[in-house]
């Protein structure tokens, strides 16, 4: 970590400062304070972005589409599953009507929990990325409840000192009936709407469970520092996506075997 090395160097300089000229000592203190301010700023930025995304979740849960759309930048994008991309707050608000009326209708449950954030703020403090785990509980009149899960890979931008969503991309990866569960049932995703067609088609075409899909990580491995963009994943013949880095021969896992005995 280069910031760390710079800090260490600054600390070493600090030890030498008393024997140097006062002007040098002052400059050293200034650079150290500047470095610390930057580190605190990055922590505050991360905190603000986590709150922004959590707030999006609280608005979206309750059908507050106007408030939720207001969290996006002017060219911000919203993409949910295979519904396509909506650009800008006005179109995003329209896209959200596909999830129900403003204010959430009677008998509806639209919970989208925002969990497990990995927010990475760019060194210049102006943009950021965030991966989130999204658990879903849905209900609408006349239908059974639904469980769902997926991943968010989002982007954020700081405009006029305020963090906004510049890209929200929710990759729904699995959805099922409340009672039946994934062992017996899987619900596929909605496609682009004819009522309010998206501004762009889906950026990645994939199918949810029982098919496999792994959205690329926006951040690198925290220990090895290596990219996590092309990890092993089963292909999908229907979609036309080949397998990537998977072993050919495959046995049933020992846990699955053992626990069924």
């Amino acid at each position, binding site marked *: 970590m280069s910031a*760390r090395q710079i800090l260490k160097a600054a600390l070493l300089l600090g030890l030498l400062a008393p024997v140097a000229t006062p002007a040098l000592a002052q400059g050293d203190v200034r650079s150290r304070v500047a470095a*610390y301010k930057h580190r605190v700023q990055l922590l505050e930025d991360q905190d603000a972005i986590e709150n922004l995304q959590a707030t999006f979740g609280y608005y979206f849960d309750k059908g507050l589409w106007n408030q939720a759309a207001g969290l996006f930048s002017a060219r911000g994008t919203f993409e949910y599953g295979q519904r396509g991309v909506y650009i800008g707050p006005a179109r995003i608000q329209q896209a959200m009507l596909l999830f129900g009326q403003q204010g959430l209708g009677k008998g509806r449950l639209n919970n989208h929990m925002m969990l497990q954030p990995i927010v990475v703020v760019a060194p210049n403090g102006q943009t950021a990325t965030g*991966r989130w785990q999204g658990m879903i509980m849905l209900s609408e009149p006349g239908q059974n409840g639904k469980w769902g899960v997926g991943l968010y890979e989002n982007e954020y931008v700081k405009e006029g000192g305020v963090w906004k969503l510049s890209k929200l991309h929710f990759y729904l990866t699995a959805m099922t009936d409340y009672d039946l569960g994934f062992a017996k049932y899987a619900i596929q995703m909605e496609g682009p709407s004819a009522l309010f067609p998206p501004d762009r088609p889906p950026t990645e075409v994939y199918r949810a469970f029982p098919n*496999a*899909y792994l959205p690329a990580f926006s951040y690198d491995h925290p220990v090895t520092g290596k990219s996590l963009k092309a990890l092993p994943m089963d292909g999908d013949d229907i979609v036309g996506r080949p397998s*990537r880095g998977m072993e050919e021969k495959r046995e049933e896992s020992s846990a699955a075997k053992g626990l069924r005995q």
Partner: protein
Amino acid sequence: MKRKHIVAALLAASMVAGGSPVAAQTADQKLAELDQRITRLEDMNAIERLQRTYGYFVDKSQWVQLSELFTDDATLEIGGKGLFLGKKRVLEYMQKAFGPDGTKRNSLANHMQFQPIPDISADGKTGWIRARAFVMSGGGWGLPLYENQYRKENGVWKISRLTGPFTMYTSWDGWGKWAMNNTWPDKFDPPPDLPPSFVYLTYPAYYIIPYHYPNPVTGKPFPILKSDIGAHAGVPGSPVQQQWSTTARLADGTQPIGEPPKE
């Protein structure tokens, strides 16, 4: 509050900057202290990311990447399966028990990570997290707790101990109808290097893993008393409770773990 403190310290530090050498020394100490406090926040942040990343790798069966999160001498213990020693065995356990690397068709094992309580040692080299996950899988639901330890090696945080006692395992029938009361060493491959460090049963019995941190209000650490530890499947003193508490405290592995509770 924390932010105000830091800003105050930054202001104080810049004010003394132009003073005498003695004052500069004081500024130096203040800056060092500030560095320590910022580093602590960064460290807590880093171990939370590590734990969340562990969850993302489990979700998608990325075992090589997962094992790289661990120190070479790390230990791993999940449910009642026993202890696996070292990074290599962590990898072997995952690949043997749950299949080879890669996101697979017909596979769902999301381990959603949340509610972390991170702490960092005074010397900044060791960290701990109590956290939980909610498992939504093809087979049903699971509720693990974690009391993990982390180590900073050459400036990089890694998992040095993962201890994940489960609170509950259930199928899609739901915990009102069925629950598996734990995993155990010989139920599936590979066998562990050491037997479980503690034997317990999951829901409808329970186990409390000791907290790495004291009660935040009283400031006092507290032991988990034997009477608190668990296996309370009924009203205290009832025959059901008596039976469960006896079962849960057997340590020789002969207990009938794994049978779903019968009403």
